[in-house]
């Protein structure tokens, strides 16, 4: 009976049942089968009110939504272009860096492509970049930058795995730079190959654009500074960021009306938070059932018979996570699979921080992987191109990201060097 119900449930999830309902139903079924009272689900959802880390999520989401309103994207693009536009393929680099800035602040939610896609796409085409290149670049740019603070997936990963947020952000820094720099190099090489016209560097334009974005450029530094100088925790930094962004957007740039816009933005950000957190609540209940039924131990036993050695495990892990990443959004993927993967990784001797970085990188790649990577559909709707065309356009960038993934997976020092310098409590 339970097996039939589970089978139907998987079918419904594949057909498009909201993920929270699928996971919650699975928890109900599992708890019922093991004779545990179903109120355990309500108790697990209520646990969300007892986790200080989670407070950072609505606050950083609100800051991200506030920043995506008005001219922030335009100002950051202008500044980056004045700084790097003189390079061959410089606009591609500008696009990647600007998108990384936005993705870190808005947390790989697709807002980057929506907020910046149109603006950057027309800029790239007008400077004679090939259309396929531009499409591919903007599609993958939706998930480049999710390693950097205050990225929501990193915070959520830490909540689920119990890792220290500051340490995982630190561990993700070099891998995040690698994921950013490799596509930038590709853009520079292509720019040179196509003989694209270079913009001469202009001090006048540079200072004008710097003046324009002077209040927004320091935001990442304020966040990193706040967290790593010990002045504030990640949650407190999130509150400071919201207040800072509110002051900048309402009082300095006057782009958000506190009467007309603020309520709408708050509601939109709450919907985003709700979409993640309700899955988190359901996943907490489901994980409770999995642990009570020793499912992770059973998977561990099965995998031990199948895979021998760390290298083979890493290959299987990478393939599995890319598949998960292309089927699910990053938040659900973290919530559903992290509790299952952690005991396995521990058994195969993988450092928890290294695992976290591998996880995030894989999911970032999965986001762009055909046939159902989420970024492909967001970019298709924003840039008004058929999704099949985006499959082809994204391939070179996917290959580059997979090179980055292989380096990150098989050279642990890229992830573990910086945390080894930072003496925080684990």
């Amino acid at each position, binding site marked *: 009976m339970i097996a039939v119900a589970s089978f139907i449930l998987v079918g*419904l*999830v*594949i*057909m*498009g*049942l*909201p*993920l*929270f*309902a699928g996971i*919650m*139903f699975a928890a*109900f079924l599992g708890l019922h089968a093991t004779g545990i009272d*179903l*109120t355990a*689900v*309500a*108790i697990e*959802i*209520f646990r*969300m*009110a*007892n*986790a*200080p880390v*989670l*407070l950072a999520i*609505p*606050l950083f989401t*609100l800051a991200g939504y506030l920043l995506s309103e008005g001219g922030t994207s335009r100002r950051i693009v202008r500044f980056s272009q004045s700084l790097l536009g003189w390079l061959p393929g410089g606009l591609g680099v500008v696009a990647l860096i600007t998108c990384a800035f936005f993705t870190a602040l808005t947390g790989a939610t697709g807002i980057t492509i929506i907020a910046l896609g149109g603006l950057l796409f027309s800029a790239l085409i007008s400077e004679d970049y090939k259309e396929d290149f531009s499409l591919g670049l903007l599609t993958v740019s939706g998930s480049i930058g999710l390693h950097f603070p205050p990225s929501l997936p990193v915070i959520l990963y830490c909540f689920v795995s119990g890792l220290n947020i500051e340490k995982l952000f630190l561990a993700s820094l070099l891998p995040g730079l690698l994921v950013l720099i490799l596509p930038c190099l590709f853009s520079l090489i292509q720019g040179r190959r196509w003989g694209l016209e270079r913009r001469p560097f202009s001090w006048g334009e540079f200072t004008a654009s710097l003046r324009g974005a002077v209040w927004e450029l320091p935001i990442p530094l304020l966040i990193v500074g706040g967290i790593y100088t010990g002045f*504030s925790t990640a*949650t*407190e930094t*999130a*509150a*400071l960021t*919201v*207040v800072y962004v509110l002051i900048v957007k309402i009082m300095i740039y006057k782009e958000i009306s506190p009467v007309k816009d*603020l*309520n709408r933005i*708050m*509601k939109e*950000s*709450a*919907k*985003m*938070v*709700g*979409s*993640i*957190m*309700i*899955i*988190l*609540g359901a996943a907490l209940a489901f994980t409770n059932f999995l642990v009570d039924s020793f499912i992770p131990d059973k998977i561990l036993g099965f995998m031990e018979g199948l895979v021998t050695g760390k290298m083979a495990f890493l290959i299987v892990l990478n393939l599995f996570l890319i598949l998960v990443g292309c*089927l*699910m959004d990053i*938040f*659900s993927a973290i919530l559903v699979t992290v509790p299952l993967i952690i005991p396995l990784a521990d058994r195969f001797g993988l450092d928890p921080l290294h695992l976290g970085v591998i996880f995030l990188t894989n999911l970032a790649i999965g986001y762009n992987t055909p046939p*159902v990577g989420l970024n492909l559909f967001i970019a298709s709707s924003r840039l008004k191109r058929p999704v099949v065309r985006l499959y082809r356009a994204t391939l070179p960038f996917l290959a580059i990201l997979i090179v980055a993934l292989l380096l990150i997976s098989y050279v642990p020092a890229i992830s573990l060097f910086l945390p080894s310098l930072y003496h925080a409590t684990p």
Partner: protein
Amino acid sequence: MWIFSRLNDAAARIEGILIVASLWCMVVSTFVSVCVRGLHTKLGLAWANDALGSIAWSEEFARMLVLWVSLLGASLLIKDASHIKIDLFSRLSSSRLIKLRDRILSAVTCLCCAIAASVSYQFLRIEMEFSVKMFLGLPAWLGQMILPLAFAVMTFRYGLAAVSDAQRDQKEQ
């Protein structure tokens, strides 16, 4: 059906007000406590230490609001029909089949939310029976009541979507 639609809109308005109020409280309480703590630890002001003691409850309050904002946001999201899902089907099939599928999935989700509302209510009753307290000595059920309430509204919304095309029409608009 119009009466249900009006009820749906009224619920959304109340949820919107609660979300905005909760987010403001969350931002202000966390901001004030970080500022006061900064004044105490960096400048050594004695009154800041006293103030910190008197606002110690604010962290628990803000954490409770995370639950409120999350559930209210999740409920409000149903109106946009944009809860996170793995959606392979709608890229492959005809619009008539998709409409049918949406109704079936809404009915299943409605059932799930109804069970969640019922078990949340049982949880609330247990907490009331044992007179569990939260910050400032307030009864814990005051914070927890969002669980059955939000799931009840979600049950209503998914039920409505299962019997009408209101949700789909809204999305298309």
